[in-house]
């Protein structure tokens, strides 16, 4: 996509901080989220879940439950399509177990009843006979010789021979000569790191309201990051036609990747089809933890060599990720992101995707990248400490730049890593003195960003306002930035544009709101759709003036003759053109449908100060600064919001949050009572610096910002805590127990 006018353009609306268009809805409780919809005659559903980590399902008895007054239908795997294959088969197997329960919380059956209380009572009356099988939940153990085979034959062709059948995918990339590289180093450090699985922790549990008739036509309301994806997948799982199911995305109460996956919608649709009534299905918090998509847990070996002057001579990494009982742990992302901030002559990364008896992992903000940064940046920090080098200088010396070769192959386009590192170095935080007991850590992080299928429509109304329809659910204020971009192009004021998340019947296919793609791709599409509308506006003016369309230009909301040769006509404002559009050719609508591929990658550098209590092992973050390249910040407040949000989640992940499985393979901390996400006092005020190195692939230079912000925190906090504690922490989360243990073992 050509860079049309990002240089030297003076923006009027882009770059300002207007109130979001849905601000009032949010503060008054008017915004309708997943569980806020009701329908006449609606039934309530509940899901029966496996209490076992791994068990064969011998028999499901539903007779007693069916007799309970108020129970209208029960569904099992039998009620879904038998024809699905590939990833859709994995989704179905996760949505409703086939012959085996693969993890604690795996759905076995579901019931619809006249009240949620009756539905839950009915679950108690269902009897399931299980044959309990051996289980494994740890990634290293799952690769070990004695591990039970979770699914025979699940490995794809990439996996080398001789590995345990639980290894289902393999990745290898890199270049150069590793042994020569390590040979050339003055110091080589090699170590192993582990991170536990975490959950996105969105506050809104999954919820939907479904209606599906015997004719295969249906309506679905749900909280999702991508309703077109829900539509396509549900249609396949229920064996109905895609276009026959209209899906509307509700307001979404947080997703962070976790609502790109599908868990309950097909179940509600199946129950609705069976009862011919609308069915509402809402997860409770414990179901969210047990049976949605947390991150992978990881085990990683890293080896890096460095010269005394800070030059990195070689780096290698082995990344083992378990992603639950299904293929798909993002180990290739982990591998590819690991050394991305460094320009290395000799580098190699290997990834393993490993099955275990845990729920199917889902994306969580830059899936796989934060863990890689934790492992690699910890070793870099240790090398800097031992060689007495400044950690930012070392990162600058080895930084990836435009034209250098990435560790995973391609040459970098224009990127902003050096600018981030320079800004971090100049930031007062980096030179501020530390108090006794405190330590400082820095880290860089990388994320690819994504474009993806996108369709946008911009319809002009007779009064000169614009109705913009986008297909990417607004997960962090994107409606504001869409309004800004449309208004900027049309030359009308921000509040004259209304952005709606259109349903699946209104627009062409839109990929999920993921990959930090919304402001980039829907933004690009909005700009192009607005320009399409402008072209049509100019044509109407040309018609009126009886001149060539090319002789009309658009400036600040007015059609004007392009120059003296075009003729001397009074400029016509947008509202005047739209007022007469019925008579001049009909409705004026701008469109854009494409798959933009120029999503610029993004880098960030974080600085963290932490202190550690030597007697109890408690760590606390006292100061935090985020420096990140946004390309171009459309609405700086929401860019800062993404920076702060990523850092806040990173603090939780680094210090506190983890999935704790018992010996029995059951998840022990299934609520916010014991899965502690940060509260206000856990977080410092997080300072932010926006760097703008324009992305050549977007008209205004936008790069996605949502995910890169969670890439550096684990590493930056681990470095700060390790420096404060005087001992290297190699396992996340750095809970008081782990820190105190490390301090104890040091002496």
């Amino acid at each position, binding site marked *: 996509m050509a860079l049309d006018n990002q240089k030297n353009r003076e923006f009027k609306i882009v770059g300002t901080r207007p109130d979001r268009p849905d601000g009032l809805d*949010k503060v008054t409780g008017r915004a309708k989220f997943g569980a806020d919809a009701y329908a006449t005659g609606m039934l309530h559903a509940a899901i029966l879940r496996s209490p076992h980590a791994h068990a064969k399902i011998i028999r499901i008895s539903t007779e007693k439950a069916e007799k309970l007054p108020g129970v209208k239908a029960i569904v099992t795997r039998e009620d879904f399509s038998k024809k699905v294959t590939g990833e859709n088969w994995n989704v179905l197997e996760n949505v409703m177990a086939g012959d085996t329960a693969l993890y604690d919380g795996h759905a076995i059956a579901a019931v619809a009843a006249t009240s949620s209380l009756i539905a839950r009572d009915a679950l108690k009356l269902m009897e399931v006979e299980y044959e309990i099988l051996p289980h494994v939940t740890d990634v290293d153990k799952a690769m070990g010789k004695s591990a039970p085979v979770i699914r025979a034959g699940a490995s794809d062709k990439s996996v080398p021979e001789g590995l345990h059948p639980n290894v289902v995918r393999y990745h290898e990339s890199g270049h150069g000569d590793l042994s020569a590289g390590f040979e050339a180093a003055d110091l080589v450090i090699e170590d192993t790191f582990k991170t536990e699985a975490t959950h996105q922790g969105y506050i809104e549990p999954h919820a939907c309201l479904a209606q599906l008739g015997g004719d295969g036509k249906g309506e679905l309301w749900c909280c999702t990051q991508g309703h077109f994806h829900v539509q396509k997948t549900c249609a396949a799982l229920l064996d109905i036609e895609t276009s026959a199911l209209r899906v509307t995305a509700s307001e979404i109460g947080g997703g962070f990747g976790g609502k790109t996956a599908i868990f309950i919608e097909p179940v509600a649709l199946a129950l609705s089809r069976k009862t011919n009534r609308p069915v509402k299905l809402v997860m409770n*918090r414990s179901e969210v933890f047990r049976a949605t998509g947390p991150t992978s847990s990881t085990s990683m070996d890293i080896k890096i060599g460095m010269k005394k002057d800070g030059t990195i001579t070689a780096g290698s990494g082995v990344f083992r990720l378990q992603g639950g009982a299904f293929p798909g742990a993002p180990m290739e992302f982990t591998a590819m992101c690991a050394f991305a901030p460094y320009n290395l002559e000799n580098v190699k990364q290997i990834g393993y995707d490993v099955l275990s008896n845990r729920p199917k992992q889902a994306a969580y903000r830059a899936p796989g990248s934060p863990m890689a940064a934790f492992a690699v940046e910890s070793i870099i920090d240790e090398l800097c400490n031992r060689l007495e080098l400044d950690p930012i200088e070392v990162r600058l010396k080895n930084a990836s730049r435009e034209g250098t070769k990435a560790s995973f192959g391609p040459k970098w386009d224009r990127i902003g890593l050096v600018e981030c590192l320079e800004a971090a170095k100049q930031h007062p935080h980096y030179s501020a003195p530390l108090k006794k007991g405190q330590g400082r850590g820095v880290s860089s992080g990388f994320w690819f960003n994504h474009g993806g299928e996108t369709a946008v429509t911009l319809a002009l109304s007779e009064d000169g306002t614009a109705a913009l329809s986008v297909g990417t659910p607004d997960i962090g204020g994107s409606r504001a930035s869409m309004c800004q971009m449309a208004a900027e192009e049309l030359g009308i004021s921000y509040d004259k544009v209304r952005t709606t998340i259109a349903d699946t019947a209104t627009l062409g296919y839109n990929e999920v709101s993921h990959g930090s793609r919304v402001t980039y791709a829907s933004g690009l599409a909005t700009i192009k759709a607005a320009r399409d509308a402008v072209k049509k506006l100019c044509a109407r003016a040309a018609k009126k003036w009886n001149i060539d369309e090319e002789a009309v230009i658009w400036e600040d909301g007015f059609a004007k003759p392009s120059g003296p040769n075009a003729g001397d006509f009074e400029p016509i404002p947008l509202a005047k053109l739209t007022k007469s559009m019925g008579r001049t050719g009909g409705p004026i609508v701008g469109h854009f449908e494409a798959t933009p591929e120029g999503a610029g990658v993004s880098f960030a550098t974080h600085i963290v100060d932490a202190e550690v209590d030597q007697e109890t092992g408690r760590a606390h973050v006292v100061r935090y600064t985020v420096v990140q390249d946004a390309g171009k910040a459309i609405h700086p407040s929401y860019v800062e919001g993404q920076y702060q949000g990523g850092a806040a989640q990173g603090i939780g992940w680094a210090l506190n949050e983890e999935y704790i499985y018992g010996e029995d393979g059951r998840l022990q901390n299934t609520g916010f009572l014991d899965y502690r996400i940060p509260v206000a006092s856990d977080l410092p005020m997080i300072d932010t610096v926006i760097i703008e190195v324009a992305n050549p692939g977007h008209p205004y230079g936008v790069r996605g910002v949502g995910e890169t912000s969670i890439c550096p925190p684990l590493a930056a906090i681990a470095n700060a805590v390790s420096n404060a504690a005087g001992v290297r922490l190699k396992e996340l989360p750095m809970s008081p127990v782990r820190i105190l243990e490390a301090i104890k073992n040091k002496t």
Partner: protein
Amino acid sequence: MQKITFILNGEEVSLEVLSSTTTLLDWLREEKKLTGTKEGCNEGDCGACTVLVTDLKKGRTEHKALNACILFLPQLDGKAVRTIEGLASKTSDLRIQEEMISNHSSQCGFCTPGIVVSLLTAQLNKDKNYDDILAGNLCRCTGYTPIIDAAIAAEKTAKMPVWVKADNNKLKKISTNKKSKQSKLFLPQTIKDLEKWCTKNPEGILVGGATDVGLWVTKKLMDLKQICFIGQISEMSQIKTANQSLNIGACTTIETLRNNIKTSHPEFSELLRRYGSTQVRNAATIGGNIANGSPIGDSSPALIALGATISLNLKGKHRTIPIEEFFIKYGIQNKQKGEFIESINMPRKEGNFRCYKISKRFDQDISAICGCFNITIKKDTIINARIAFGGMAEIPKRAIAVENFLMGSSWSDETISKACLEFENDFNPISDMRASSQYRNLVAKNLLKKYFIELSKTEKNTNVLRVKI
């Protein structure tokens, strides 16, 4: 007939309560379709369901932020409730809402209604300690900075919402309603009423604030039959000074107690500040926290170290026991059928009392260990030692061996080091998801050392255990 009356968003509501354990949240969302109040966890952690409840107590208005998910309808009798929908008809009516918009304090916006209610309640109570106010409102998107910015900005021009006065007047009106005999049995107003209920229902469950029993219903899906709400008994909600002790009614909320003892018992008060969140402290009662016998309840080890006693009532007959004698073993307390805790007595000053709550998160978390120390020293000799721990045994428990070792010894590094060895004779803690056995053992010793350092040296805040609020 079990009938209750309360004010909802300015309108009087009279209800026949079919199930005593219908939560306010379910009723608001399912019956009234007031969906601005959100369900995020259904166990009082996330605060997405925060509502404002106003109560008239002896003519004084009390505004509380409460979690609607673990608040049963009968607990609202005679009170006024405001949900997010009832706060303002347009945003300019409410500064906090305006500031939340212009400071971009919402990303997804799901937690926003609960946060608006919490901040408004704080404003009515002239409270500006935002970390504390928001400890019970989880936001996963923002990192809280823009929310706190909005709260501070709203301080300047905050005005009292117009409905506050109107709600008060309506409250006065319904408070003069005559209670039927039936409803008195269901919602006792006096200790005598409660004695009668307990005599009739010796196996019954008493509910103070429902912060624990609420979870029996919403999480364990228990069907509770014999249940009696006691939070409204004013005789049991008072704090009285008598001789050398404070007499605390069992239905005193944690928040009321915390506020009352800020000067007399600063350490205990600070421990109570870290008890749950504002919403939880506003509901939970001190009697309930003791009576449930949890090994990780925070008030019990503190009260043991302070030397508190509890007064139990069985059909009008009283007996008083040291609080540590109340805890027999896990799930079993020194309490007869039909007997209830009426009040707690503790010394008027806390002296050398210190307590350390060790949890993964600083605010709103369950203790892995709660260590409480109260040692009296005279001329460098220890003349009295009371040490109690939560999280180290199946009940809140005294460290008798450590205490015995300390008694009569000199107050010195050496004594403390030796005393630490005695912990092994007192405790054999379990490993669970909150901490390992080794960690608990090590930290118990380290806390005694910390206590020694804090008591003997001028350097008070030795560490990050205390976050400055």
